[in-house]
């Protein structure tokens, strides 16, 4: 893999993050003290078996959930201290999400789906249309703007979802098993698209996957086991991971 990645300052930093679900005897510790630093412009893959805490970490990094204890610094904000709506505003401004199940609105055209984040940003109709078409163009689906998810293939749906995630020019794109529902060929197309966005649009990509083949596209791979970071691979030196 090419290593012409340009890393900036630290964008995200987790310090001693724990997460406990439930209380009393049924309490379950999903994270047991996680430290992670992610630089601006990185392409990070998070790997690990089920129950290792990778999804919980992604939820926290996506500002969807807060740690039970520890610090989460994002762009200088102590996210762990923020209220629900303040975290929503962070997501709106700086984050984009791509899910395994695509999660597009049914019976809604690709264009309307991509426009959705702009609606919450309060953009006017003309600007929404322009930005959404540009995003669809970037994922190669400009001609499919008036198709509903039911009329699109899985790969195309995931591209629409990516267009929706990047339409606001986010700092970070969070992808939760983005290729989990796709065949290998489609998966590689999606990974190439994510790599392109990372390299050429300067978007920091955080991706959860359990497929080594997909993780190989990333620059940094974080391995989780039993609620802790087991090891971090950085493919800095030429030849690593290839």
């Amino acid at each position: 893999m090419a290593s012409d990645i340009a890393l900036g300052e630290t964008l995200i930093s987790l310090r001693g993050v724990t997460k406990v679900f439930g209380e009393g005897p049924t309490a379950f510790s999903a994270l047991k003290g996680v430290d992670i630093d992610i630089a601006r412009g990185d392409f990070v893959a998070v790997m690990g078996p089920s129950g290792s805490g990778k999804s919980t970490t992604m939820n926290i990094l996506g500002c969807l959930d807060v740690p039970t204890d520890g610090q989460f610094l994002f762009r200088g904000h102590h996210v762990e201290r923020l209220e629900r709506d303040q975290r929503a505003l962070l997501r709106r401004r700086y984050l984009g999400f791509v899910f395994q199940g695509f999660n597009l609105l049914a019976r809604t055209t690709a264009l309307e789906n991509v426009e959705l984040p702009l609606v919450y940003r309060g953009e006017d109709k003309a600007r929404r249309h322009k930005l959404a078409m540009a995003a669809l163009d970037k994922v190669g689906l400009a001609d499919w703007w008036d198709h509903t998810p039911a009329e699109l293939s899985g790969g195309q749906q995931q591209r629409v979802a990516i267009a929706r995630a990047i339409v606001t020019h986010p700092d970070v794109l969070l992808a939760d098993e983005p290729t989990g529902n796709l065949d290998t060929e489609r998966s590689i197309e999606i990974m190439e698209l994510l790599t392109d966005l990372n390299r050429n649009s300067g978007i920091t990509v955080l991706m959860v996957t359990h497929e080594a083949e997909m993780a190989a596209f990333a620059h940094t791979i974080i391995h989780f086991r039993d609620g802790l970071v087991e090891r971090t691979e950085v493919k800095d030196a030429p030849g690593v991971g290839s």
Partner: protein
Amino acid sequence: MYATTFLLAVREIRRHLLRSFLTILGIVIGVWAVVTMVTLGNGATAAVKQQISSLGSNVLQVRPGQGFGRGGGGPQPPDFKIEDLDAIRGQLVGVTAVAPLVQSTGAAVYNAANWSTTINGTNREYFVAQPWTFTGGRMFSPAEEQAGKAVCIIGSTVRNRLFRGADPVGKRFRIKNISCEIIGTLAAKGQGGFGNDQDDIVLMPYKAVQRRMTGNRDVRTIMVSVDDAYDSQAIQASLRKLLRERRHLTSEPEDDFNIFDTKQISDTLSGTTQILTSLLGAVAAVSLLVGGIGIMNIMLVSVTERTREIGIRLAIGAVAREVLLQFLVEAVTLSCLGGLLGLLLALISTMVLAPVLQVPFIFDPKINLLAFFFSALIGVVFGYFPARRAASLNPIEALRHE
């Protein structure tokens, strides 16, 4: 933001057209029922008022006897004399007209046509007390009234029975075997407040009826028209006092005559129909409430069904208030649509039903507006709970929802 939210709501409604229609059906029927009931009820009230006012508004009718359903035993109290009318005219203030009614019945004959009718002997002031319109001819002259000349003014029923289409003014016909010249014809008033035909009538100077039909100088009924500026209750009281004196009842405990106030009757009857209208409206309003519960039910189902969508919106960065607003606006838009549809149906059905029920169609903007705002309010009240539930969903769980 509000415009966009409204747009999203309309989009969502359009996407589920049948379900949206079924959702608002309760509101549609509720608004329809309320507006139809109240509109028809108001029409009925107006009809009653109009029928009563055809008796003459603010007219006191005085008759011997103790009123409805009483005075069964004992001798019949005497009728009034024409001097009683003069006394009323002379001694009471606020009286615009005093008219006698000397009644008789008999056959009216013209050529081969023959019709049994009511003959009312009266004076010129009668036309002040009673709202009659002439279709032709004139009322009696003072000289004719004074002399008790055999001149007749006929109601439209009598005219139709005897003359068909012909103009009877100037013709002579026989009434109770008296030859009488027709000097005027009256416009139809229609059915009276008690189901009687008010147009089956022949009016003559009272002296003519007394002399040639009843054979005495008695007056059965006195009609006293009261000036609107005066209190009819006070005038009624002085009238009673005056008549008691004239009939030498000062030592008797009870009157031997009764005063019938048309205004009072009118107020009572229209009050009754108004109460009935409110009652029907209230019953219909319950169905509107049930409609609101229907909206809440569907909105709750919709929130569950669209949990994933809510999760997506939250992940994308919608704050709780925006999700709340979306569902609230959707509920309010739905219920307002239901309200409008109900108003439209009510308009159509009242326009169709009013002629069938023989009540006038009166469009009341107040009840239409009220019903509409109430349906919007129902959207807010019953939409709030499901919207709150949607807004408080946890985005992670919502996204995981199947």
